[in-house]
């Protein structure tokens, strides 16, 4: 496919074209809300912006376009794929937010503007190849997320969650900036590839060690890796369900993209030097990954609130993706990227089901889900699919992506066993643990008896959940749909 339509229109701005459309949309959104009084027309305008931006991105992605803008942004297969992921997330959230009873009614234009701005920040990070743009992009996404979490007003839980989020987020910003300043001091430049070259000539220094520790801690807060995860369940429980879905699927992927961008590039270039302690760093990531999935899954067992349970399972899923940073192979990165995509549909879908049921007057406790199989057959069935997919039951998407990710942990690309078999063992054991608490919800929905009265959920939720169900099944039986893009994106990052 040819990208001349886009390149003619945007000329030298082509690498950042999808973000420019989002920027214009985000600026226009509060004004749009002044006109029509109905919330769904604002959401429709936001969806138009997202679809326009996604169309531009898909054209560029299919045309294998590569280009740089101002030496700060670089559009390649990896950036295109991640932008596609963020578009998917925001489109699902924008679709449901107008019919949710939890989202704001008074400031709905601002809500959509912040949603678009947060996504724009994530997209900037996906294309960034400089520490400055990564930092500003992450902060753009984070600061708007604080407001989105606080926007369920007059709810004490939401305001408490927002305070925790803003303080933990500020702490993580301070840690990362300190790390970035050390990295700048060591390498003398902010371009990631140039830093990698500079580091591979001078090897491991104490200043780089400080940079590494503070950056792992700071960005670890963003992806809620153990032991930096305590804020995540509170925020996902307190925020409105569409925002929880956005944070669990979008914001978390943002942190993972930063990890991939900074650490993979640094260490893949750095492996050439023996004094550059890559293996030690791989073990640090392996331990963080193992701890993250174990703590996430084990604590999730004890939860009675379903949003909190999903939050802990989301922490565990981030642990699975962190395996990529321990293994550091192209094959594993392919699996990791694919798991990020399937996670959007499984976890996003599960949060949307919870949100839909809250609109219909069902509580957040697992005991409130008793008899749901009779009361709302489609919702219960969708939840069943999402939870089984998260646990990794074939033939659903979660099984396929976990299979690729875990097999990349055991074997490298040439079929030789790696030293990370224990990590794959921990991950598979964790999948078994997770099945226990997912099955608890399924048992409540289908086996236990509850109210008999039928539930009606808003149409927009049904549509969004149907899309998630569709992709959860399609990506499970036909993974090539995304997998080819994932492998070319992984090749770009390791290239």
């Amino acid at each position, binding site marked *: 496919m040819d990208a001349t339509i886009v390149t003619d229109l945007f000329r030298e701005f082509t690498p950042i074209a999808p973000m420019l459309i989002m920027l214009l949309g985000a600026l226009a959104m509060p004004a749009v809300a002044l006109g029509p009084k109905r919330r769904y027309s604002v959401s429709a305008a936001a969806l138009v912006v997202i679809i326009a931006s996604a169309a531009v991105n898909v054209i560029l992605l299919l045309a294998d376009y590569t280009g740089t803008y101002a030496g700060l942004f670089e559009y390649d297969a990896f950036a295109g794929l991640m932008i596609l992921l963020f578009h998917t997330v925001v489109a699902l959230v924008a679709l449901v937010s107008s019919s949710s009873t939890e989202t704001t009614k008074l400031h709905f234009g601002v809500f959509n503007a912040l949603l678009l701005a947060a996504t724009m920040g994530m997209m900037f990070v996906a294309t960034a190849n400089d520490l*400055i743009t990564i930092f500003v992009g992450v902060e753009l996404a984070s600061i708007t997320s604080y407001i989105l979490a606080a926007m369920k007003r007059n709810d004490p839980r939401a*305001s*408490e969650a927002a305070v925790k989020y803003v303080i933990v987020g500020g702490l993580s910003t301070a840690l990362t900036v*300190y790390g970035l*300043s050390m990295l700048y001091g060591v390498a003398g430049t*902010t371009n990631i590839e140039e830093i990698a070259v500079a580091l591979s000539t001078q090897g491991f220094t104490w200043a780089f060690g400080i940079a590494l520790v503070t950056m792992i801690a700071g960005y670890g807060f963003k992806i809620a890796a153990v032991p930096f995860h305590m804020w995540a*369940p509170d925020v996902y429980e307190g925020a409105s369900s569409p925002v929880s879905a956005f944070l669990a699927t979008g914001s978390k992927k943002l942190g993972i993209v930063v990890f991939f961008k900074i650490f993979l590039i640094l260490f893949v270039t750095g492996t050439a030097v023996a004094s550059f302690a890559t293996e030690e760093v791989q073990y640090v990531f392996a331990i963080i990954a193992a701890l993250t999935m174990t703590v996430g899954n084990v604590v999730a067992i004890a939860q009675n609130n379903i949003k909190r349970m999903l939050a802990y399972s989301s922490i565990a899923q981030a642990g699975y993706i962190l395996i990529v940073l321990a293994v550091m192979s192209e094959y594993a990165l392919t699996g990791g990227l694919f798991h990020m995509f399937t996670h959007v549909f499984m976890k996003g879908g599960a949060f949307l089901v919870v949100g839909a049921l809250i609109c219909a007057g069902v509580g957040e406790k697992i005991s409130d889900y008793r008899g749901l199989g009779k009361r709302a057959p489609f919702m219960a069935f969708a939840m069943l699919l999402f939870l089984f997919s998260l646990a990794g039951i074939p033939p659903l998407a979660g099984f396929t992506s976990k299979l690729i990710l875990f097999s990349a942990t055991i074997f490298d690309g040439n079929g030789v066993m790696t030293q990370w078999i224990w990590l794959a063992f921990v991950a598979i054991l964790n999948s078994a643990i997770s099945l226990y608490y997912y099955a608890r919800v399924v048992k409540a929905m289908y086996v236990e008896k509850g109210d008999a009265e039928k539930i009606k959920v808003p149409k927009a939720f049904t549509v969004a959940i149907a899309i998630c169900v569709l992709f959860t099944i399609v990506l499970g039986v036909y993974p090539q749909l995304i997998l080819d893009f994932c492998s070319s994106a992984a090749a770009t990052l390791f290239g």
Partner: protein
Amino acid sequence: MIPIEAFLIFAAILFAIGAYGVLVKSNTIVVLMCIELMLNAANINFIVFSAFTTDVVGQVFVIMTITVAAAEVAVGIAILLNAYKTKGTIEADGLASMRW
């Protein structure tokens, strides 16, 4: 000339004071101020590295950090105000209804 280590140690001490404050203070506004201290420690690092290598990118980064910090504090204070309205307190101990 003052050696670069002096500046870096000063920044590290500032960072440590900020981190200590974030961990022990219970008033959330003081916690926000301590986060600002940590950010400023990083800014000093950037400026020092920039001055000693005559590379201006570090100074550009500082301007970005200051802008981001201002936005973060503005949002943070608004969120604290909102919390005060709904919960009647901004002490960390009063904002602990959700645990585990």
